[in-house]
């Protein structure tokens, strides 16, 4: 109940300045055809609004659409030598409606991708299923981010690096990402890592948390080993057996694929949830 009230108050607070200031909204879209490209590196810096990533048409290297306050922001949509830079920069957002802005990007499912995404007060939905992810770096500020890998990644992702500020971050289907290494560092927030999917290799996960809640959702059958550091962080180790300094799933030795999780948390709670 408290949360609902808070949401209403925040919505009202956001709506008031929005009504007060007339804003000049501009929509910019850009697209490029695949032209023998073998790699697309994407750099996104987005301050506020809604951010979406998804797979696009096979023949289109990228397609983006940005809606932004023209008085406030300078758009960036530049492609050069396989590097695509996207975003809106500059501007003092105090007292302005920034929630109505958006940045949508769709990438070719045929061209391997290296993603470097940084965003601030953003509501983000990243659908990486169907894309060829080689590496991804996601830095979020005060935001809510949902990362979904609904289909297996045809490539092997070397690294997924996530830096979470004061935010809510939920990653679903990480088993489909086929990442060798996942690194998550969080300040204050609520992080959920869901390892459902069709894993193809062993994954090493490192989590550095300041304050907040970490939930690991693990499908049964995946071998799990958790090493936890930080005596002030509570750890719900249901379904895990402690051996030495680490917690192991009962099928650790026999599991086809293994997940090693190294957690260093100062305060907060850590929970492992098993999925059937």
């Amino acid at each position, binding site marked *: 109940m*408290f949360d609902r009230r808070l949401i209403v108050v925040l919505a009202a607070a956001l709506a008031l300045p929005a009504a007060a200031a007339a804003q*000049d*909204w*501009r*929509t*910019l*879209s*850009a*697209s*490029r*055809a695949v*032209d023998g490209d073998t790699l697309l590196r994407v750099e996104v810096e987005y301050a506020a609004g809604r951010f979406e990533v998804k797979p696009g*048409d096979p*023949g*289109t290297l990228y*397609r983006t*659409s940005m809606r932004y306050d*023209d008085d406030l922001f300078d758009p960036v*949509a530049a*492609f050069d030598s396989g590097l695509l830079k996207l975003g809106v920069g500059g501007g003092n957002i105090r007292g302005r409606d920034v929630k109505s802005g958006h940045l949508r990007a769709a990438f070719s499912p045929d061209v391997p991708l290296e993603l470097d995404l940084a965003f601030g007060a953003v509501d983000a939905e990243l659908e990486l299923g169907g894309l060829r992810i080689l590496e991804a770096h996601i830095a979020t500020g005060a935001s809510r981010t949902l990362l979904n890998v609904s289909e297996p990644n045809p490539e092997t992702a070397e690294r997924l690096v996530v830096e979470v500020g004061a935010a809510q971050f939920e990653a679903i289907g990480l088993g489909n990402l086929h990442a060798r290494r996942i690194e998550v560092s969080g300040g*204050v927030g609520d992080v959920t890592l869901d390892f459902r999917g069709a894993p193809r290799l062993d994954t090493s996960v490192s989590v550095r948390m300041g*304050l907040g809640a970490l939930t690991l959702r693990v499908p049964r059958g995946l071998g799990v080993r958790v090493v936890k550091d930080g005596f002030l962080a509570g750890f719900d180790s249901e379904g895990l057996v402690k051996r030495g300094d680490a917690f192991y799933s009962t099928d650790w030795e026999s599991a086809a694929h293994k997940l090693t999780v190294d957690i260093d948390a100062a*305060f*907060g*709670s850590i929970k492992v949830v098993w999925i059937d």
Partner: protein
Amino acid sequence: MLRTASSTVRALAAAVFGATLLWAGPALAAQGAGAGQTTAVAQAGAEQAASADAPVNIRSSQIALSRDEARLQLELAGGQEFSLAVRAGQAYLDGTSLGRAALGGALDRAWRELLEQAMETPNADLSALLEAWDAPSSDGVGDRLDRALEAALRGQTPAAALANIEGAAALDPAAQGSDSVARLLDRINELESTVDELEDRRATVEARSASRSRQSRGPFHNVGDALEGIIGLLVTMAILVGIGFATIFFGGRKYLEGVADTARRMTVRSLLVGIAGSFLVLPAFFLGIIALVISIVGIPGLLVWVPGFPLAVAVAIMLGYLGVAHAAGEAMAEYRFRGSEWFHRANSYYFLVSGVGLLMSMFFAAMVAHMAGRLLSFIFGLLMFFGCALTWAALSVGLGAVLISRGGTRPLGREPVVDEGLFAEDGNV
């Protein structure tokens, strides 16, 4: 007057346009009949050339839509780049005007509709979509835009595309007639642009003269502003003193004096603690919230913490400022009064009034300097700066003193009342 002139120009333009149509109509018809054969040949040639130049694939596209601009930028497979835009009432091909396209007019709307569709169209189909577009009928500028787009899609450079438009118009007698009309329309558009420009100038001139009239409100303008400022300061002072009096009257005297004593006796320490405290207020607030949330059982405590903490900080700052004012007033009284006069006149109410006045004196002096206008503007700025600095220092010292003395309950600076003579007398008993 200018408004009347603009409407006159528009009426004249409309009249000229009507008369020209009446004059040109039969002539155009005759011209069209006489040159029918030539036209057919020319058109056939042009179509043959056009079919030979199939649209080139689009490598990349960029589309911008805003209130006053609808722009399409294309890069073709051959590397050619061009941009077509309808912006601020004009249509452009690579920055060269193609003519007037009124904002919200038929062409503007049709062009925006095309670009909105293009935003959602895959690159492979984009060329066909753009090629199939037809500008609204009976619009010379739209026709040019359409031709420019088609020519550019066939890989022509902007200059060649423009030449192509002009060339096609020259070959086609019907187009010549429509070109005359188009030229006339352009002329009307130019006149309308001139009218718009003149209206803009008038608005600028009016704004400037309004600004000048504001600036030249006579020598008493500054005096009026300064008096307004002084009244504002007096009201602020009355509110502060009123809060202070209420605090003293309702039993807060010992706390106020406790803070004042701490501020006087431990000024530097209070200042440092106050500065540190002001930096720590926000982190303490948020850490408190986090601690309550994490503890789960403390979540109901948020209902007290969230409104209570800022209120407590506000009360502490107010108590601190009034304590410093009290201390300043006391110090001033010690300097002014001698002997029994102290006992007659010195009390907390007096200290408070004089202290608040002292702390605000820089602002009062600044307002007096402001009366002299530009002559003493430097002094005004200087006094305002010092006034702000003094207020900041008083707030910091006050907050520090409140924290050190625990809200005035434990004034650390107050010396214990020890009368050695009294003990000596006791000893003699």
